[in-house]
């Protein structure tokens, strides 16, 4: 076969000098599958690889950067290179990485070097990913290197956690035994990350730190277990994991008890009992091994030190979420009851029903801080609950009533009476967002089974309130008016004029100061609202407000961003389908709004009709298959179908005299008429196939692994074949060959398609096979 591509040797020359866009096109060329050729290994590939190694060894960051990218592209597209050269590449890469990390302080000075460091790390990651799973390669290239790579990454992760932690997480999960010697050192590093600067990292990094900490517990610590007499007990796989979950859980209780110094628990005896029942370590076993955290320093005289409690709970709940949600190779025993109890206890820490302690009530500054701290504690309860309900779904159904009732405590209410405090609600919009998404996941499992409507109507009101665009200027105007009167009496007119000059925008363009709502928020709110509309008959106040919100916001958003977001479309559809106690659905309004959206529901509602196939043949499934076949036939040969349609029409005319009514069924049968020769073996074959599918299913269970391997092996082949087709078609000199190749490929693929085929496919594939069989 003629190769039309650039030879690798010339690329090798180019790559050294290339820059910018030229380098990019070189990388693009490298992806070509023509280089996957063992015969090239000694000549061209050898030269190219040598060039790449040279680039990697160079002292200039830019050359290293180029080398990294070239290696990544070449290895991921070229299995031959990967198998032969990965070992060498990895060695060079990690030595380079080592030199960079050793001089991290200097490296971090220049942006170029820092970028190169990041690229190096990523390339190492890519290479390791590529090697993993290939037994020989792993044994020879990866496992020996890991002993050097892991400590390197561990050092680097102190400086660049968001870069290294994902790689280390992968290593922990997939090369657990190799990681074992480094576990203790890594634990120390992670401990430092968790206890010291945890709050400084962004959300994803925090998550990564916790995930790594959790995965560290995959490594078994069986040293002390052997000494005891319990060897004959079969230890469960998750022993280590479970004990660490519990140790995290145990640390919540003292923190909640600490809040007893702020809130007066003694008012509510049930509350006291409940807190008492929270999970605590058993004293006799002495399970408290390593205290992760230092004692808290909280001082009531410095009100902001109270935030320490919130920070600590945040870390703990993040750790807990990692332990709960991460996938592991072995089944886990999760203490769901304990976790949910703790979430509830956190949610109970509210000033809604519990008074503050006596001595604290007078200081306004302190009480203000306390209220916000408590709210953030409650919020952590919601965060944990959210991840639980996402991971365990229906398993927590048993607890849902208590969860819902404790969630209601999160809604702030006014000091006297039962009314919702909307000012506070508006200040915690983000948290309400999480509450809504929690409710959405929860209620997805519950449906209309919930009889407690109170929480949901409250939340509906809150949601409708929060989706309005509001500015914080309401208070400003009132205070300014006061200030005006004061200032006029004191005759400091100059000052006032100065201020008015700066503030003029607020008066002239108040709309510019409106806080916009994120689209993401709308999505969650809409999901919640449509859930509420679906499951309950709302009082008309809420229903009307929801309808109004949906219509008005879809129009405004349509004007602002050019299209109506999907969640609004769904909400409108739900409102139409569930009109509640309204006299009329808003069908015309919704259709008018969504006329460009091609909404299936509205389409059917506006032009009511039965499903197509249902009309044609009520009931019988065997005919349905025929129809599908017939419907697909016209693509193949148009002449025949035209004739058949004509005959069909004639038949219709004839029959219409006799019967009066003609179903489309008859037409279809007539259509099939000329092709009866094909139809018969088809029906026979479909029956065989339907039998076979069952056989296949059984076999699939037994031999799923081997099949997978087979398909893996076959994939590259088939890819090559299709490419061959493409190429041969381009060259017009050898048409006979083309035909042959096409046929052979088809016959070659036949067994594949058979083995893969499921019940639904057969109509077309099988008919092809039939033709082939006949020919043969």
């Amino acid at each position, binding site marked *: 076969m003629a190769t039309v591509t650039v030879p690798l040797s010339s690329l090798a020359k180019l790559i050294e000098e290339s820059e910018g866009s030229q380098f990019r096109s070189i990388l693009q060329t490298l992806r070509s599958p023509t280089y996957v050729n063992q015969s090239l290994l000694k000549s061209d590939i050898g030269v190219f690889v040598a060039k790449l190694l040279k680039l990697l060894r160079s002292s200039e960051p830019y050359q290293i950067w180029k080398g990294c990218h070239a290696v990544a592209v070449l290895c991921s597209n070229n299995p031959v290179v990967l198998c032969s050269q990965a070992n060498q590449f990895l060695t060079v890469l990690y030595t380079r990485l080592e030199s960079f990390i050793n001089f991290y302080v200097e490296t971090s000075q220049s942006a170029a070097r820092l970028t190169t460091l990041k690229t190096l790390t990523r390339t190492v990651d890519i290479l390791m990913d590529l090697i993993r799973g290939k037994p020989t390669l792993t044994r020879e290239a990866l496992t020996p290197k890991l002993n050097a790579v892991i400590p390197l990454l561990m050092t680097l992760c102190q400086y660049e956690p968001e870069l290294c932690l994902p790689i280390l997480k992968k290593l922990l999960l997939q090369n657990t035994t190799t990681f074992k010697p480094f576990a203790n050192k890594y634990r120390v590093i992670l401990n430092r990350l968790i206890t010291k600067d945890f709050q400084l990292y962004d959300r994803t990094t925090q998550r990564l730190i916790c995930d790594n900490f959790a995965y560290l517990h995959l490594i078994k610590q069986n040293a002390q277990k052997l000494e005891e007499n319990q060897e004959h007990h079969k230890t469960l796989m998750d022993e280590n994991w479970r004990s660490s979950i519990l140790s995290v859980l145990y640390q919540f209780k003292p923190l909640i008890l600490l809040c007893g110094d702020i809130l007066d628990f003694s008012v509510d005896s049930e509350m006291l009992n409940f807190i008492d029942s929270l999970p605590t370590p058993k004293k006799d076993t002495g399970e408290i091994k390593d205290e992760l955290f230092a004692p808290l320093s909280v001082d009531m005289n410095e009100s902001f030190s109270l935030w320490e409690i919130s920070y600590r709970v945040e870390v703990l709940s993040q750790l807990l979420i990692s332990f709960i949600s991460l996938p592991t190779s072995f089944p886990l025993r999760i203490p769901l009851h304990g976790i949910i109890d703790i979430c509830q206890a956190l949610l109970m820490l509210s000033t809604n029903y519990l008074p503050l302690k006596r001595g604290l009530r007078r200081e306004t500054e302190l009480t203000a801080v306390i209220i916000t701290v408590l709210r953030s504690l409650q919020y952590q309860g919601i965060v944990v609950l959210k991840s639980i309900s996402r991971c365990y779904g229906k398993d927590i159904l048993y607890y849902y009533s208590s969860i819902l009732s404790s969630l209601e405590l999160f809604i702030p209410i006014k000091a*006297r*009476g*039962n*009314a*919702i405090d*909307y*000012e506070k609600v508006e200040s915690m919009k983000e948290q309400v967002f999480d509450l809504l998404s929690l409710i959405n996941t929860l209620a997805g499992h519950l449906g209309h089974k919930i009889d407690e*409507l*109170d929480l949901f*109507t*409250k939340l*509906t*009101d809150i949601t409708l*309130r929060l989706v*309005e665009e509001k500015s914080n200027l*309401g208070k400003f105007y009132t205070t300014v008016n006061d200030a005006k009167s004061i200032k006029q009496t004191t005759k400091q007119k100059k000052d006032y004029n100065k201020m008015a000059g700066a503030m003029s925008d607020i008066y002239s363009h108040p709309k510019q100061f409106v806080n916009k709502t994120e689209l993401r928020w709308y999505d969650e709110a809409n999901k919640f609202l449509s859930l509420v509309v679906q499951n309950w008959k709302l*009082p*008309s*106040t*809420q*229903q*009307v407000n929801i*309808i*109004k919100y949906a*219509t*008005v916001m879809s129009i405004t958003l349509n004007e602002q961003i050019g299209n109506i977001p999907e969640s609004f479309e769904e909400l409108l559809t739900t409102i139409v389908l569930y*009109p*509640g*106690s*309204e*006299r*009329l*659905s*808003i*069908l015309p*309004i919704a259709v008018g709004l969504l006329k460009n959206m091609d909404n299936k529901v509205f389409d059917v*509602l506006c032009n009511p009709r039965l499903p197509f196939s249902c009309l044609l043949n009520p009931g019988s499934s065997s005919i349905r298959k025929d129809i599908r076949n017939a419907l697909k036939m016209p693509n193949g040969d148009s002449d025949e179908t035209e004739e058949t349609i004509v005959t069909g029409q004639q038949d219709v005319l004839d029959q219409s005299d006799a019967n009066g009514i003609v179903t489309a069924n008859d037409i279809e049968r007539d259509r099939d008429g000329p092709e009866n020769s094909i139809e018969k073996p088809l029906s026979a074959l479909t029956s065989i196939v339907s039998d076979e599918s069952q056989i296949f299913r059984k076999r699939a269970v037994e031999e799923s692994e081997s099949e997978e391997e087979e398909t893996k092996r076959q994939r590259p082949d088939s890819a090559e074949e299709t490419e061959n087709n493409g190429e041969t078609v381009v060259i017009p000199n050898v048409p006979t060959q083309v035909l042959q190749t096409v046929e052979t490929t088809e016959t070659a693929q036949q067994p594949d398609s058979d083995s893969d085929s499921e019940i639904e496919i057969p109509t077309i594939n099988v008919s092809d096979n039939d033709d082939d069989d006949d020919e043969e």
Partner: protein
Amino acid sequence: MAKKTVRQQDFMKRKLKVGKPKQKPSNVTDTSFQMKRISLPSQTKISSGSNGKSAGNGTGVLDLNQEVIKRVSLLRHHSDVTRKETVLYFESMISRIIHLPSMNNLMQSSIPLMCDSSKQVRDELANLLDTIGKHDANVLKLQIRAITLYLNNAMTHIIAPIQRDSGMFVQVVLKYCADELVRHAWIKMLKGFFQVLGWTIVTQGNNKAKGKSISMGITSSSVLSMNKNKKHKNENLKAMLQFIRAGVLGAAAIGHEDRNPEQGNGANSVSPLLQQRYVPYMIPEFPQPYAYLKLFTRQFAKGELTSTGAETSSTDSGNMTLEELETLSCEDTHTRRMVFNQHFYPSIQRQLPALIKDGGECGRTAHSFSSTLEEILQITV
């Protein structure tokens, strides 16, 4: 010097010359133009092309339409006799004009007559509305906004006779568009009745001891006149009773035409369950189906009217003040019943025993009133 000459010019006598026209004084008014058309703003212009629809109907209908438009202005005539005569005339014409485009003009100018100073006009208006309702209730339904506005106006009117007559109008309106009326202005109308009857509303404070009572009577004289005039009192009481029955017990309670019922009382229709399912998706049989959404009306921002940030969920509407209640929409029976039970029920119950004791027509109505209240209570329980 210059000033002096200027002043003197005014007093100089101009000489008249032969062959030249007489010089006009400086302040002359030009009266040379001829009058072609005189516009008198108190009468409407008659234009022929105002109704393009008449092409198929022939000229008779066209003339009728113009006739109506011409006569509508007479409803605002200063003489009460003319006004009454006009109303009478329209009443006789209703069967012919009910579907003319000019009906809109007629309704717009006749509804304000609810607050007319003359008793005769008001009586005739009630008859007119009744006739309209008999012919086509949808005409009344279409105007429900205006009707409620003027009903409220009448109920809160400072002139006692007008206020007293409001019950009569309510009864007429309830006959034909009870459902619309209770949906549209449940709370407002209830408050209005209290004002007409001169009753007090007991507000429920957080602690019962503090519960205030608000007297809804405008003046003490109006309360007095109402108490004196037993007949009117009875009328108003009846109206209130009908209104409450319509609102809380549903449309069937009054025994009128069966519209799409919320209470599931479509026993005489073919299959009520099925109907309930598909009726919301059919073309509505009543006008202005989406008016209640108030998509095109300007509203005050929430919390702007009341400093407390009023809107609370209806579940704890027990804590809402009467002003806050206005934010609720009473489209469904459930909300209406709840609002009624929590805010108006106790106040009404306080008044009834005395009325029953007094006896007479009033006493009888009050008796049926109290039995209705019990019925309502049973539904709630």
